[in-house]
C-alpha cells in the first residue's frame, strides 16, 4: 500500500465545501468516535458478534473515506466484507494492523487540523 495516510485532495475538497471551522469540529468528532468503533471491533471479535463487527467496520470505512483516509477505509471495508472468520483465523492480527493505521491517521489529521 503506497497510498498516503490522508489523501489531501479529498481532505481539501471537504474543507472547501464544508468550511474550515466546521472541519476542525468534524475531525474532533471523528477522533472521539473512531476509538469507540475500534473498541467495538475488538469487543465483537472477542464475543464473536458478527453483526456488531460488520456494522462497526462499515461505520469506520465510511468515516475514513470522508476524510480521505483511504488506506484505513480499505482495511475497514475488507473487515466489513469478509466478516469475523478471517480475523479469527489470523488471531485478531488484522485488528492490530487497523489500530496501527488508525494511529497514523490520528497523527495526520491532528496535524492537518492544527495547520
Amino acid at each position: 500500500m503506497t497510498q498516503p495516510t490522508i489523501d489531501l485532495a479529498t481532505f481539501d475538497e471537504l474543507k472547501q465545501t464544508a468550511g474550515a471551522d466546521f472541519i476542525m469540529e468534524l475531525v474532533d468528532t471523528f477522533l472521539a468516535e473512531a476509538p469507540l468503533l475500534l473498541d467495538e471491533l475488538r469487543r465483537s471479535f472477542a464475543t464473536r458478534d458478527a453483526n456488531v463487527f460488520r456494522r462497526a467496520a462499515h461505520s469506520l470505512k465510511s468515516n475514513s473515506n470522508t476524510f480521505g483516509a483511504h488506506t484505513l477505509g480499505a482495511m475497514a471495508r475488507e473487515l466489513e466484507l469478509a466478516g469475523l472468520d478471517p480475523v479469527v483465523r489470523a488471531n485478531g492480527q488484522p485488528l492490530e494492523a487497523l489500530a496501527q493505521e488508525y494511529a497514523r491517521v490520528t497523527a495526520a489529521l491532528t496535524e492537518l487540523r492544527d495547520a
Partner: protein
Amino acid sequence: MREAGHGAARLLVVDDNKVNRLLLTRSLELQGHSVASAENGRVALEMLRRESFDLLLLDMEMPEMDGFQVLEQLVGDLQLRDLPVIVTSSLEGIDSVVRCIELGAEDYLTKPVNPVLLKARLGASLEKKRLRDQQKEWMRRFATREVAQDLQQSGFALGGKRVHGAVMFSDIRGFTPLAESQPPEETIELLNTYYTLMFDAISSHGGVVTLMAGDGLMAIFGAPQPMPDPCGNAVRTALEMIETMDLFNLERVAAGKPPIKIGIGIASGEMVAGYAGTNERATYTCIGDTVNLASRLEAHTKVAGRTILIDSATRAALSDRVGVELLGTVAIRGKAVPVEVHSVNLGQKL
C-alpha cells in the same frame, strides 16, 4: 413548513454515525435548508409522526431500527408514504440499492456524499414532491374529500361495487330564461354562489357531489364511505338547501333580482358506485334504477308543483317525526309500475 426562502425545505437526516450526521447536516444547511437529525430509525419515525418534513435522508446500516425497516414502515403509513426518501449509504452491493428502490426510496447516494450530486438529487426530489402536493391539492378541489380519500386508500380502478345509499338530484327552475336575461358573467357568478352554498349543505351531511351540469347537480349519500342513515342525511340536506336558498333569495330580491327556485328529487336503495370512464379520464359516479328514479322525481317537482320529492323507500327509512305528504302514485318513465311519490314538508327542523 417551508421557511428560509425559495427552494428551502425542512429535511430530516437519519444516521447512527455522528461524523456522517454532522457532515450531511452541514452540507444541507449550506444549501439553505432547515435540517433536523436522528441517530436511528426508531427516533426518526417518532419525529416524522410528530413534525412535518419535506424529505428524509436515510442511512441504511443502523442499530435498533435500520433503514430497510424505516422504508417498510413508511410504505405502510398513510400519512407518511408519500414522503420522499433519499438513501445515503455506503452499503456494499447492488442488491441493497435495488432493495431500497423497491421499498419506495426515491434516490440513492453513496457515502461519502458528493455535495454537488446531493444538491442536484435533492432538488429533483423536492420538485417531484411539490408537483405531487399540487396534484393532491387539485384532486381535493375537483374530487371532494371523500372521493380523494377513497382514491388514496384503495387506489384507482374502473368498475363499481354495490352499495346501499340515497341519491339526490337538484336543479334550478327556469334557469334557461334566467340565463338568457342577464350577461353570462352574472350567470357564472350566480352559479358559483349557488354551487358553493349547495356543496356546503351536501358535504356537511356527508354527501358527495358526483355530477355538476349547468344548473343541475347529483349527490350520493352512503358512498364511497358507507354511512348509518343515508336517507335521513339526504332529506336533512335537502331541507337545508331550501333554507339556504331562501336566505340567498332575500338578498337577491333586495337587490332587485328575481329569486332562484330549486327542485330536489331523492331516491334510495341499492346502486352501483365506482369509477366510470376510461383509464385516462374517469369520474366517480353511481348508476342504477335508484339513480334514474331520483332524476325523474326531480323532474316531477315541476309537474307536482312541490320542492322536495322522495320515493317510498326513502320515506320508509325516515323517522315518523319527518313531515311528509303522500302525493299518490305517478307513472315514471322507465318504470313498469307507477311509483309512490312523497313530498317533504318544508320548514321543518330535523
